Structure formats: C-alpha cells, structure tokens
C-alpha cells in the first residue's frame, strides 16, 4: 500500500513537536474528517530555521507532515511557499489514490503557517 519512503517517515517522523513562541503556526483539517495537521515555524531573516509539526491522522497524514517539514527546513519563506502537494507525493515515492488528500493537507498546512508568519510580521 505505502512506499518504503512513506513507511520510513511514518515510523520515524522527523520534526515532531511544538515550537514555543513560534513565528508562524498553521493548522488545517478537522477532527471530523480524521486529519489535523499543525505546523510551527521558527523564522530568521526570512529563512525557516526550525519547523515542527503535530498531526492527528492516518499513516499518510503523518508521513506527508514529516516530509513536508523536512522539505521546507532551511528554505526561505518564498521557497517554502512554492511547496506543492505534487512535490510532497514525489518525495514520498507516491501515495495511494485514496491518500492524495493528505499531501494537499500538508501543502495547505505549510501555507497556513507561512501566512500566519506574514500576518504576524506584516510581510
């Protein structure tokens, strides 16, 4: 069902946790549908120096969260903003059709966190 890459990120998720006094926080999804992703950003000079996530959801939700945080860590805000769900899926060597929405959620969570950062910093 899941690729090895997915299973790797699922069983050893990177960047799990919270960032206190994060510069940007984004939460998407809802418990009703079974997926919530929350992403915390620490930004310095428009660069994402740290990122953490918390996720309530299935294996794919956890894996996409994990890889998305890896993919934006160390990137500038502008670069991070370009993250697409397609890129997430590709980095995971694919996702089952029924799980594509998780990658969308991951993209949205990143965007929501960046938007929060922008709002807080008037950028």
């Amino acid at each position, binding site marked *: 069902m*899941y690729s090895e890459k997915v*299973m790797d990120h*699922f*069983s050893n*998720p990177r960047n*799990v946790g*919270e960032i206190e006094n994060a510069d940007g926080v984004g*939460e998407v999804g809802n*418990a*009703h*549908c*079974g*997926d*919530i*992703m*929350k992403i915390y950003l620490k930004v310095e000079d428009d660069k994402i120096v740290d990122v953490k996530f*918390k*996720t*309530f*959801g*299935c*294996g*794919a*939700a*956890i894996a996409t969260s994990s890889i998305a945080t890896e993919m934006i860590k160390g990137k500038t805000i502008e670069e991070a903003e370009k993250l697409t769900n397609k890129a997430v899926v590709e980095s995971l060597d694919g996702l*089952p059709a*029924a*799980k594509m929405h998780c990658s969308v959620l991951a993209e949205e969570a990143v965007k929501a966190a960046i938007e929060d950062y922008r709002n807080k910093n008037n950028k």
Partner: protein
Amino acid sequence: MSRRVYMDHAATTYVNKDVLEAMLPFYTELFGNPSSVHQFGREVKKHIDKAREQVAKAIGALPEEIYFTAGGSEADNWAIKGIAYANRNKGNHIITTQIEHPGLLESCRFLEKEGFEITYLPVDQFGMISVGDVENAITEKTVLISVMYANNEIGTVQPIQEVAKLAKDKKIVFHTDAVQAVGSIDINVKEQGIDLLSLSAHKFYGPKGVGALYVRKGVKLTNLIHGGHQERSRRAGTENVAGIIGLGKAIELAASRLEENSKRIKGLSDKLITGVMEKVPYTRLNGHPDNRLPGNTSFCFEFIEGESLLLNLDIKGIAGSSGSACSSGSLDPSHVLLAIGLPHEIAHGSLRLSLGDINTEEDVDYVLEVLPPIVDRLRQMSPLFEKVKGGK
C-alpha cells in the same frame, strides 16, 4: 519483526489444516462436475450432499434448506433482493438496522432505487436494537425484517429470537446475517424461528469465497444468479466444489468445539479488554459489555486516528483492524461507530482486535505490552491531545 500476533479473525481466518486436507482431493482426483452423469461427477455430488448435511446440522436446518453461495455478501444480497422481488405484489417495505454489513446495506440502497422503502433502525450506545422499534416500524407493506446476528465491528449480539418471533407473529419473513456469529455462537434456526440466514466459511477457518444461505422450506425467493440447475435451480454456476467441502468440514469442526473454544477465547478477550482499559486512559470499549461475540474486542482511543495505530501495531507484528475512515479509503468513519453515537473524531480512533483459535495468553500479554506506548506516542504527536493536556 520478532513476533506475529494475528488478531483480525473477524476479517478472515486461515484455513484449518483438517479443512484443507478435506478439500485437496477435489482439485485433482475428485475433479468432476457434480452435475455430470458419469462416475467422475457422481462421486463429487455425494460429497457436496454431505457438506450440505454438515452445514444443515450445524445450524439446525434441513439439508434441502441450504444453498451454497460465493460468500456472505452474495448470501446477503440474495436474501434481501430475493425476498423483495418475490414479494413485490405483497409490499415494498423492508426493516433493517443502521449497523448492518455493507453487503446488506448496499443491497437495500439498490432496492431503494428500485422503488422499495427501507427503514434503518437505530441502535443504542451498546449497538443494541430495540424490539419495540422493530414492532413500531412494521407497516402493512413490510415483507422482510433483517437484523444481523452479531456485529462485525463492535461484536454486539442482537435479540434475534425475539425479533424472529415478532416477525412470525406478523407473518413477515425474517433474515439474519449471521456471518460473524456462525462458529462462535450456538445457533438453531428452527428453535429460534429464523427464516433465512447468511454465513461465510472464511470466518470460521474455512476457505474464502464460499458461504451459504439457509432458506426455510416454503419461503419464496427470487434467484440472484440465474442459469443452470445447480442448487435445485436456485443458484446457478458450477459448484465451488473444494470450497463447499471446506465449508462443510469447517462448520462441523467449529460446531464440535464451539463451547470449549468460545469459552477459551472469551477468556482471552476479557483479559485483553481489562488490560487495555486499565493501561490506556481516554479509552472506550465499543459494543455491549456482555452480549458480545466471544472473540471481539473494540476500542476507541481518543485523540488518535485508527490507521496510524494499526500501522504501528503492524510494525510490531500485531494485526488488527479499524473502523477508521482512512483504513477503508472513505472519508467518514465506520457507520457502526457513528450509529452507537460516537462523535466523528472519536470514531476515527477505533481499533478492533478479534481473537481466534491461534491466540494465546502470551499474545494478549504482548499486545498489552506494545499497545499502550504506541497510543501514547501517537497522542504525543496529536494536536488534539495537546489541548487536553493543557486543560489538565
């Protein structure tokens, strides 16, 4: 992975080795078509007849009341559609429950499109229907009442005999989907007044893809699969001979060990339930505390989602199942968990561990050792748990 613990017997079982042994000759030496006039066919026919007797005996029916099918879903489809079509001149109303198996519910939805009216009865928090509700739902046009014997997800066993009696009093045909019950619970269709009953071999150590529909003599039923003269012209298709032999043997074995086995398995389930409830906070037991299948345990762990729990258990070699939406590819969690009144977010966090013949005390101990830290770890990752912790 060091240890493998299979606790998904409600999904399917392995084939018992005596059952497999009984099946094997029918692929090679005894390969004739039971409809054939010649020796090759006649020999096989005798064994099919014997399997029919084995099934009949196990549920207290007559051999001529047993019709072999390709499994539980076909049996359910046939029962529902067959009774509906056969009684169209009498009425177009069917009563069933909200917690039936998809094989039954989707048959009902199909019939709705064909002009039938279906009442889906609610259940209480334990998954029990109320006989009073059934009675109130009956109209002049009711031609069928179908209530599952025991639920596949939460294990709740329904008051079948009472419903059957009510149906009989009102002269309405009564069907029960006993796919989860046969092999675990002692059933006698005559004593219990059941008109039709679905069963499936792969739930009691028989092969997948074969089952049966019991149809009480005299009950009119339109065919689902039309064609040849097999099954006394009621279910066409060259018989799944080896499968039928396997079904016969499996049900005979299950019946002979039912009491002893169910008691042992119930002991393990109870131990598992007690252990999980003690060790894992924010946990609910789904289903009825007493009236439940001996092998069924079903939990909801708040703040986490079922599939990620399953996958983590799987990594540790434990096979279970979940009514979570994600494990089925749909968006809504199990209709059963919603029907017992769980909110969506809690229903998403369900885990069913269904015990069977191969499970041991050690298996239960292993689960009790492995499960709590996994739940804890997933909760630590969950933004929902965060809020609870904050509130504490």
